[in-house]
């Protein structure tokens, strides 16, 4: 099953590209001209994203490098220990919705320090794999269409991240604990 899905992931893009091209040629679409006219839109979209991403990255880096993140982890440690959540995994859970590369760095660090097959290693892997960078997704998607009033979208994203973390703890402790 795993091998099959991995192969599917590897083949997905080449097959998709060929299928689109063959089908378009069959439909007599001038493929190269169409490609160029569509691709032009990519530049404007990306440039529009830059202010959003620069702003967010600065805030995240300041929060982490100042030691504020460590402080928050320390403050919450007693509560977490009481409910059986390893405090070592807290920075990951807090940063996962905010930065993909940052949380990946933390996951790698946890795996290196506690071992990939430890409870903490497996929990970190599961949390990293089962949620996405909510703030980044929000920044990129809403930034691309210049929507500024995002209503309840952030709350939905953060709440589902929280549920993802809780679900990860439950299932990992059930199977591997």
């Amino acid at each position, binding site marked *: 099953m*795993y091998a099959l*899905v*991995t192969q599917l992931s590897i083949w*997905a893009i080449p097959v998709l590209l060929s299928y689109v091209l063959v*089908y*378009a040629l069959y*439909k007599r679409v001038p493929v190269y001209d169409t*490609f160029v*006219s*569509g*691709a032009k839109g*990519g530049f404007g979209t*990306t*440039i529009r*994203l*830059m202010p959003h*991403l*620069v702003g967010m*990255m*600065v*805030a995240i*880096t*300041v929060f982490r*490098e*100042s*030691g*504020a993140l460590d402080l928050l982890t320390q403050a919450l440690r007693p509560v977490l220990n009481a409910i059986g959540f390893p405090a070592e995994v807290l920075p990951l859970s807090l940063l996962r919705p905010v930065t993909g590369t940052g949380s*990946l760095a933390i*996951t790698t660090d946890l*795996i290196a320090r506690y*071992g*990939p*097959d430890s409870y903490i*290693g*497996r929990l970190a*892997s*599961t*949390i990293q794999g*089962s*949620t*996405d960078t909510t703030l980044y*997704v*929000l920044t*990129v998607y809403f930034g*691309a*269409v210049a929507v*500024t*009033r*995002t209503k*309840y*979208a*952030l*709350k939905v*994203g953060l709440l*589902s*991240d929280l*549920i*993802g973390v809780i679900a*990860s703890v439950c*299932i990992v402790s059930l199977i591997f604990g």
Partner: protein
Amino acid sequence: MVNYIWAGMILIGVAVAFVNGKVDAVNKAVFEGAKTGVTVTFGLLSILIFWMGMMKIAEEAGLLNKMARLLGPLARWLFPTIPKDHPAFGYILSNMTANLFGLGNAATPMGIKAMQELQKLNPDPKTATPAMCTLLALNTSSMTLIPTTIIAIRMNYNSANPADIVGVTLVATFIATCAAIMIDRWYQRLERRR
């Protein structure tokens, strides 16, 4: 809410750095963070340009409309406000499929195209529509079949069975996605009652 989170992260960071006597760390973080922002954007540039070109071909060939029709019941249940056979459905489906296979790089342009289609239906371009929020909910909880990056890291650190977290990850991501859809629905209902 984004406004408060953003300003809060910076202000709390500065205050903590002042107390810790690490004000120079803030100076460094500002430059590093801004640089990362630009690097990430340029990383997106190449991917966005290529995939938006490819998607234009798919659109002109009529593939997106075909996909939209195929998707039918599920998408219409998730996005009741989008008119039937609207091209947005095609982009949304491609976005969901790419996420499922862990092709994050290809999923983003498709999601952005879907957003741009949804924006055309938006009576107030500054405010998010319910359909936009649903698309966001699906993407932030991103159902993934195989977390390839994580497996690669576990392999690097000599795990006995690097892929043994696939099962638990699937369960966790499924629960998170269902939760995202339900929470989104709940907020939609609250909005309508106002």
